[in-house]
């Protein structure tokens, strides 16, 4: 299953969280990790809501050999991130811009991939294994 939620209002963030949490539950994540996955979706969706006019969150179950997990992809057509490396550094205050919260998202997941082009948009894909 693969769900895509367009993020335009704050309630879309809530919808994305809910779909993500339910998917995480189905996959078999425990309460704590369901909460973490919802948090990750929240952070990614908020970035879209606050800093990009157009964007969506995609949630899907992933399988790889004998592992299962969840992948969350956030694609937006926002301003882009000028220096991805800098945004991912810990301790740097990135609040108030498109990269806000990404270090946190990284810490809550197993893998994060970021592609960004200034004035074209950003794609963030994170995966978390069961």
């Amino acid at each position: 299953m693969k769900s895509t939620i367009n993020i335009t209002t704050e309630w879309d963030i809530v919808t994305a969280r809910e779909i993500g949490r339910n998917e995480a539950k189905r996959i078999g994540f425990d309460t704590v990790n369901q909460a973490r996955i919802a948090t990750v979706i929240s952070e990614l969706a908020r970035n879209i809501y606050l800093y990009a006019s157009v964007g969506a969150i995609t949630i899907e179950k992933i399988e790889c050999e004998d592992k299962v997990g969840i992948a969350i992809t956030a694609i937006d057509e926002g301003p882009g991130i000028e220096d991805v490396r800098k945004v991912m550094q810990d301790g740097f205050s990135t609040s108030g811009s498109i990269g806000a919260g990404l270090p946190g998202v990284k810490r809550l997941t197993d893998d994060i991939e970021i592609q960004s082009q200034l004035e074209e948009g950003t794609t963030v894909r994170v995966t978390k294994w069961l």
Partner: protein
Amino acid sequence: MKELKTQYKKILVDYIANQSERDLYIGQNFIRQLIQKNIAPEEVIHMHKQVMEEIFPELPAVSKRGYDFLIEIMVYFGLTLKEHQILLEQQEEMRIEMNVAAKIQSVLLKTTVPKIDGVDIGMLSIPIRKMNGDYVHFLNDEENYVGVAVTDVVGKGVPAALCMSMVKYGLETLEYAENNPSHVLEVLNRIIEKSVDDSMFVSMFYGRLDLARSIFTYGSAGHEPAIYYNAVDDAFYGLGAKGLLLGIMPEMKYEQTEIPLYEGDFIIMLTDGVTEFRYDDAIDSRKIIEQLALTYRHLSAQKMCEKLYEELQKLQEDGLDDDFTVVILKK
């Protein structure tokens, strides 16, 4: 705090009634603000307990005691979080310090390109971070010789920048431009081996041009080979050597090689930041540089350096990821 409790109560009551995702989202946003206000987790649990008692007077004693226990143990999480706050401030201070340090370092390691009759010298060095880990030093005595050292320190940060001050210091003690490249490398190797940390190494290409005889003598300590263009052959040659990096073994010997320079010849000395770009694995990056050098060889040495930088930057997908230094010597 009382206002916060009222807020918290409202959100929690809603959640308990509906268990909606919306309430969790609001709850998380609220806690994020509390964290920014430096509210400790034990205070949150305490607030939670009070609210639970208010909205649910028949809350069993067992639950209450459970909360008391949670408050008690959360004190240690709170402590760690407070320490975090302080570390963040310290980190910020250090960042400011580093900016000052970088500024001083850039003055200390400023290179002046000598102007000499009969040879055109250009140079460009672009640091990737605040402090440059590449360094170029010229030794010249105006009439007979000009020496050029192109160096790259393995490592980064303040120690690497200070290590470069060490290299500069060592080169300055040599004083005269007529020193043999092998001698220069041997002296520098000893200085760095002795006085710098074991984990710090420097690669160096050292070339000396005998102005009267137009003979270029060079040696290398684990450095990226220079690119030599021979106009008569219309061909490129790599100028490398087998020497180890400076700072590994105290008594290293370095070899040196001589080549004559004729009209139209040029030598491109560079650091690995110039050649290690990702573009197309099938094409050798040095070949691309040679191609660019041919295209722009009609320009001055300085302009050639700038064009090289410009064009190579375009080829880089994610921008440069090492200090970029190129020195061109044109006959």
